[in-house]
């Protein structure tokens, strides 16, 4: 039996107590037991935060992303900063501890700007980070705010030249009369320094707010998406981009839908998808035309008329779309569900998972407190067998596509000690509330998990809970 499967909570927890560590988890992702190995952003911001309970808005994490090997984990925040964590090498001394993530580099990616023409402030909040595949010793990532995409190079320096003739070790120019001999400067080791430099700035491509960026599998181009347009850029060229999708109507008053997310196919460099606020996904082929306004495939599920309400349009808006690693499936997230689509079937999704259906009767209050506009992301595990997404009260949900089991876990300091196994959580939807269950009305809607990421090959996940970052690994014995 799987310890974290929420549906068999009572029996499983008893089994766990009886034989706590003797039975190792099964090899597949379904049997993982999640352990907290926490990285706390407050440690990095040590100099700014004195009171542990006080979180500045600038520290709110707005995006998290593992790189293609999982060695690095990048986070972006509302203050325009990027913090990159690196997994330390596994040491022979402590074989039971898998590599921990430590801060590798911190830099200010974007600054607040002011558009004088429109009298609008441009937020510095990092909306998305996407890594480029590694091609040499340096690491490259794309980070974007509402208007500008930047390519950052993160490189290490662990040697420096010493023994210059014309200047001394502090850099001061030497008096020429004191130079009596020539020497060749040599490279000597120094303390590791990690530098981040902006290599490209892709600006003035978007009138509306950028919501996604996606690197193409050709590793030469990438696309940036705003509410109405998608632009294709070459990574080397910053003064030109190609518009490949434009859904802006001639008369803005006829606007009925906006683009909410877009992504390139993981293997086919000519294929990409974009999702809309109306709950549909369009797959486009760039070989068909220069402007991909006509889709190749159109994925939409007919609305269930019995669920119609004032808020049907809002909750059907797709907040995230992700290809599976295999490229065979698509996953979409709307307000209440996660859906998995087969690229070969446009009429309806293959699988639909309820993330927090108990909120369906609370939509009016969620509309009042603005939570109904929250944009949750979703993510696949490396083998495409498990999908994960966030919810409220710092809960996040995992769905095993093979066993059809799901689990609700919580990212919180109070409930998890480091190295402790996460206990599955359950929301009580009505009737008698059992012990350890939480009722819908007690959920904290200010604690939302919008951003999560999964290591590309291992069972390591990073979950952003407002200003804190939690990293969980599966427990191995």
């Amino acid at each position, binding site marked *: 039996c799987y310890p974290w499967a929420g549906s068999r909570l009572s029996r499983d927890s008893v089994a766990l107590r009886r034989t706590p560590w003797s039975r190792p988890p099964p090899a597949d992702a379904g049997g993982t037991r999640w352990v907290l190995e926490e990285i706390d952003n407050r440690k990095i911001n040590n100099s700014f935060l004195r009171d542990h309970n006080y979180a500045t808005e600038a520290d709110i994490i707005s995006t998290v992303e593992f790189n293609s090997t999982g060695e690095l984990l990048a986070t972006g925040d509302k203050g325009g900063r990027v913090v990159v964590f690196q997994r330390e090498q596994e040491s022979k001394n402590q074989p039971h501890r898998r590599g921990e993530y430590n801060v590798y580099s911190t830099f200010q990616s974007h600054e607040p700007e002011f558009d*004088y023409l429109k009298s609008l*402030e*441009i937020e510095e*909040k990092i909306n998305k980070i996407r890594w480029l595949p590694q091609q040499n010793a340096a690491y490259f990532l794309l980070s974007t705010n509402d208007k500008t995409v930047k390519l950052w190079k993160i490189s290490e320096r662990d040697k420096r030249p010493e023994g210059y003739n014309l200047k001394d070790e502090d850099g001061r120019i030497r008096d020429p009369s004191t130079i009596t001999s020539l020497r060749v400067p040599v490279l000597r080791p120094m303390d590791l320094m990690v530098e981040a430099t902006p290599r490209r700035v892709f600006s003035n491509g978007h009138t509306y*707010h950028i919501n996604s960026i996606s690197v193409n599998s050709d590793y030469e181009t990438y696309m940036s998406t705003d509410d*109405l347009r998608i632009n294709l850029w070459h990574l080397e060229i910053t003064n030109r981009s190609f518009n490949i999708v434009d859904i802006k109507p001639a008369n*803005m008053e006829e606007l009925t839908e906006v683009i909410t997310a877009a992504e390139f196919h993981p293997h086919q460099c000519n294929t990409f998808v974009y999702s809309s*606020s109306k709950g549909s996904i369009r797959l486009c082929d760039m070989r068909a035309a220069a402007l991909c306004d006509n889709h190749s495939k159109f994925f939409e599920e007919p609305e269930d008329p019995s669920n119609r309400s004032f808020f049907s349009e809002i909750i059907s808006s797709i907040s995230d779309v992700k290809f599976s690693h295999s490229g065979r499936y698509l996953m979409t997230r709307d307000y209440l569900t996660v859906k998995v689509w087969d690229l070969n079937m446009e009429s309806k999704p293959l699988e639909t998972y309820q993330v927090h259906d108990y909120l369906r009767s609370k939509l009016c209050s969620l509309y009042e407190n*603005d939570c109904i506009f929250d944009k949750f992301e979703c993510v696949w595990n490396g083998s495409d067998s498990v999908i994960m997404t966030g919810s409220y009260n710092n809960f996040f949900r995992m769905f095993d596509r093979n066993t059809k089991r799901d689990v609700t876990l919580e990212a919180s300091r109070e409930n998890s000690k480091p190295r402790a196994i996460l206990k599955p959580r359950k929301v009580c939807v009505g009737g008698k509330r059992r012990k350890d269950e939480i009722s819908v009305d007690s959920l904290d809607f200010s604690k939302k998990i919008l951003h999560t990421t999964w290591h590309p090959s291992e069972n390591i996940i990073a979950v952003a809970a407002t200003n804190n970052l939690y990293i969980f690994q599966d427990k191995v014995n």
Partner: protein
Amino acid sequence: MDVSAEAKRIMVQALSKMYGSRSQRGGLRLHRSLLLTLVMKSARDIYHSARAASESQDSQEEKPAASDSPSDPPRGEDESMDTSSPEVPEEPPKSASAAEPTHAEEDQENRSPVRVDRHSRKRRGKTATEPDFLPCKRAKMDSGEVLRILQDATLRSNSGQCARGTDTLPGAHMLRAVATC
């Protein structure tokens, strides 16, 4: 009337949210504004169908111009929304544009300086995010005022009088008051 009360509440909240988003950092969010507009439209449709069912006798007192738009109350409310938040992306152009010229004829006496602005002002809607070459110098109103105006508007529209004439007064007062501050 529960549905209609809920619909009204949703509309009022949508309006105040749209108004509040104008002062947000980063400018108007198109996606959010669109969703709010859709909610407002569907709430308005439900509100009117609920009210039309219960207030069919008022249709005799409505102006002939009411044939252009569904009924007088929506016009009154539309216009009051128009007054209070000029940048709000709105109702179908048809009913409003048809209503506007007829209102111009009827309301000669009640015209305020603001009116002229309103007729000639382009419906901003989502074009607020378009590059326009003048800085945006709109008077700000807090959501309490917006709600008050809307509540006044909906109360007045019950009376079956020219809703537009009575509704413009608080709006005009508001804008004039802000201009002089």
